[in-house]
């Protein structure tokens, strides 16, 4: 972005539209409250004191999918829960992103059996996978920053 001085003290900034839209989307992403199991507790810990997610613009976790743009699937997804995950994903308006937090959401984790969906990418398209069982809050923050970088590199046509 370039800043030019014109008309005395007024500042004028020039930019590409794509850049500023991606910048605003990345810095004000609202996650949906979707903690399923143990990873949810680490997500809550990342939101609370010591590792604060508010400094990344995620002050609130919206309970309603219609008002959020990031779904952090935190925990194991069982076969009974899978249609619910898909329905919630469909209810989120575009643009939307999904972080698969933890081993169970990425690949089924410790549980390789009849009851757990082996990776939530069988149900919803995932952008970032965060490994760990459960991942440390710092790992989740690293995943969120990776997602921010991905968002900054997107084109307008992706969501148009």
């Amino acid at each position, binding site marked *: 972005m370039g800043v030019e001085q014109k008309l005395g003290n007024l500042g004028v900034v020039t930019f590409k539209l794509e850049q500023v839209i991606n910048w605003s989307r990345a810095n004000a992403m609202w996650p949906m409250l979707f903690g399923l199991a143990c990873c949810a507790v680490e997500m809550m810990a990342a939101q609370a004191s010591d590792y604060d997610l508010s400094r990344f613009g995620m002050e609130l976790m919206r309970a309603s999918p219609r008002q959020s743009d990031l779904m952090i699937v935190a925990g194991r997804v069982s*076969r*009974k829960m899978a249609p619910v995950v*898909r329905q919630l994903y*469909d209810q989120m308006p575009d643009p939307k992103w999904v972080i698969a937090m933890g081993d169970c959401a990425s690949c*089924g984790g410790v549980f*390789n*059996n*009849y*009851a757990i969906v*082996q990776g939530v*990418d*069988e*149900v*919803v*398209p995932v952008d970032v996978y965060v490994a760990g069982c459960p991942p440390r809050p710092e790992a989740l923050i690293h995943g969120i920053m990776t997602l921010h970088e991905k968002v900054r590199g997107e084109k307008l046509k992706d969501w148009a």
Partner: protein
Amino acid sequence: MTTIDKAIAQLQERFQAQPCGFCGDFGLLIGREHIVEAAQLLRDEYGFDMLADITASDYWPELQPRFHVVYNFSSLEHITRLCLRVPVNDDDPQIHTVEGVYASANWFEREIWDMFGIHFEGHSDLRRLLMPRDWEGHPLRKDFPLGYEEPQFTFNFDDIARRKPRAEKGQG
């Protein structure tokens, strides 16, 4: 004699309960037709006021009996526990419910129906509890497969990737 010895003696006399071979001090075998009366006896006369747990165990490929349903009674005032095991055959997996005696048996029996397929007569609400409504099969039976998914190594990566369902953006 302590409460539990009296209770065991009474159960052995009235219902022909036998000590179970491999359970040590943990369990009397009792026939399935006697279980409701035995539960009533334990609750009313011997102070076993809490039914802590009902669970079951599958001994497939042995078919007679195939299951053992284990009732775990606990007395809060005498601080003692007693277990009754009911053998159930494969061709007729049914027991009468003890929901009338202990209210907590409701969901325990529903879970056993869901996981093992043992039917409880007289139960007020026998539906699936943990599995989805339209699931077929009873998962904790030994002849139900684990549902193990083969791990993807380099040599079979593409095969499995072709078969595995994967959601794409813009679908659904």
